[in-house]
């Protein structure tokens, strides 16, 4: 008889291999868009900026590195959540094997997204360093910690959303819709500093904004993050979402499997 952990590990390994295959062979240009999407966004944003004629940069950071950090970190969070929406449905047939639990594909997908997005960040960092931008993190350990926290935020969100969307499919649509305003309000492409202080107060309820700003502060020495961001606040969200997500999976395991 194998131990619980051995069984779980085999399941994760098997699902991981399956997901890697599905991700890379599923859509024809799958590989290309992983890097293509953030690069396209950067090109578009730089284009818009020079059209408006605003050349004054962000205080303490170059615009392009600032943008790269924000966009990749936001995508890390977004993809973890979005991929979780269909994680259970896409693997429904595999629940015939009692070793596979509904939470497994969610965890595995999130881990895979984390690896892919980390690779994307590395590539973009290398590229911009070659182009002579100052893109190496000033505080590498701090940056890694915040990056990891952002991934956990995505995982927590993904755990909650995967159950929610499976039980009430409309939740999946709403989450996908919300991601666009989230993209803007998290300060991924527009600096939140330029927004009046009175509004910043409300935007600060969004934990993703905290994550992005903290990450930038760790990357660029002279950069001052939006006032009021805190690592602690981000982790309150992390812990709350992870706990809620795990609880939901525990509570609805049978229903998710049988559906």
């Amino acid at each position, binding site marked *: 008889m*194998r131990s619980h952990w*051995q*069984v779980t590990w*085999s*399941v994760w*390994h*098997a*699902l991981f*291999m*399956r997901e890697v*295959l*599905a991700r890379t062979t599923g859509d024809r240009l799958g590989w290309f868009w992983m890097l293509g999407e953030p690069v396209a966004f950067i090109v578009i944003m730089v284009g818009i900026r020079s059209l408006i004629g605003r050349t004054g940069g962000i205080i303490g950071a170059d615009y392009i590195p600032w943008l790269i950090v924000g966009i990749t970190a936001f995508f890390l969070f977004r993809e973890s959540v979005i991929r979780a929406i269909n994680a259970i449905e896409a*693997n*429904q*047939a*595999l*629940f*015939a*094997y*009692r*070793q*596979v639990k509904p939470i497994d594909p969610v965890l595995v997908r999130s881990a895979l997204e984390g690896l892919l997005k980390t690779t994307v960040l590395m590539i973009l960092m290398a590229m911009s360093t070659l182009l002579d931008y100052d893109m190496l993190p000033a505080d590498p350990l701090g940056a890694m910690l915040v990056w990891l926290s952002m991934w956990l935020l995505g995982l927590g969100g993904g755990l909650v959303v995967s159950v929610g969307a499976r039980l009430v499919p409309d939740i999946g649509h709403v989450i996908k819709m919300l991601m666009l305003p989230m993209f803007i309000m998290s300060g991924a492409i527009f600096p939140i500093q330029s927004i009046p202080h009175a509004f910043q107060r409300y935007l600060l309820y969004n934990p993703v904004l905290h994550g992005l700003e903290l990450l930038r502060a760790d990357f660029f020495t002279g950069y001052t993050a939006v006032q009021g961001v805190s690592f602690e606040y981000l982790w309150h969200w992390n812990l709350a979402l992870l706990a809620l997500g795990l609880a939901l999976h525990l509570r609805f395991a*049978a229903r998710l*499997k*049988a559906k």
Partner: protein
Amino acid sequence: MIEVNKVYKRYHTHNHQSTGWVLRGVDFRLPKGLSLGLIGGNGVGKSTLLRLIGGMDYPDRGKIVRNCRVSWPIGLAGGFQGTMTGRQNVKFVARIHGNTRRIDEVIAFVQDFAEIGKAFDEPIKTYSSGMRSRLAFGLSLAFDFDLYLSDEATATGDASFKAKAKRAFNDRVGKASIIMVSHSEGILRDLCQAGVWLRNGEAIWFDDIAEALKAYGESVKKPPLRKAG
């Protein structure tokens, strides 16, 4: 080896309304080395019971105890991911069951047993039901389970495949046993010793499969007549 303790099961619709009880207090013990045939009409819960024994689903009340290596329910419903090829599905199942080191061995065995040729590298959704059952049955035989669960696993295979499946299974008598749902009396008589007749959500145990088939057959021959209108 398997204990089914007063198991109740019902399903729910999307509006959270429950359907009636499918299984109502099913209760039996299957000793080691004995193969069991599950019989009964359509929709009485044979597949449901098999899914519960396989751990694919959970009972609403009662308990199922598995003291041995039990396969998944082998049959047409589920078990394969349609977008993955036969080979990928086989790899997946081999990995789940902790056979990562002898994965090539498993693939070779299944490929040889299923005899589906080039289709092995095509997505499962393109398979005919016969090809699926060949793959499913071959795959289950690649692992040493103590108890196999078969939900009409060979029903859609052709005559030569059925003979092969039966031979393969007879080779394992003594090492493994089977719980089998089937509407074909021949295979039940060949492979099973005991029988359970599911009727109105309850299980009636027979020590001899022949008696179970006889009792079930008689109940079918004399349907309760009801006048129309």
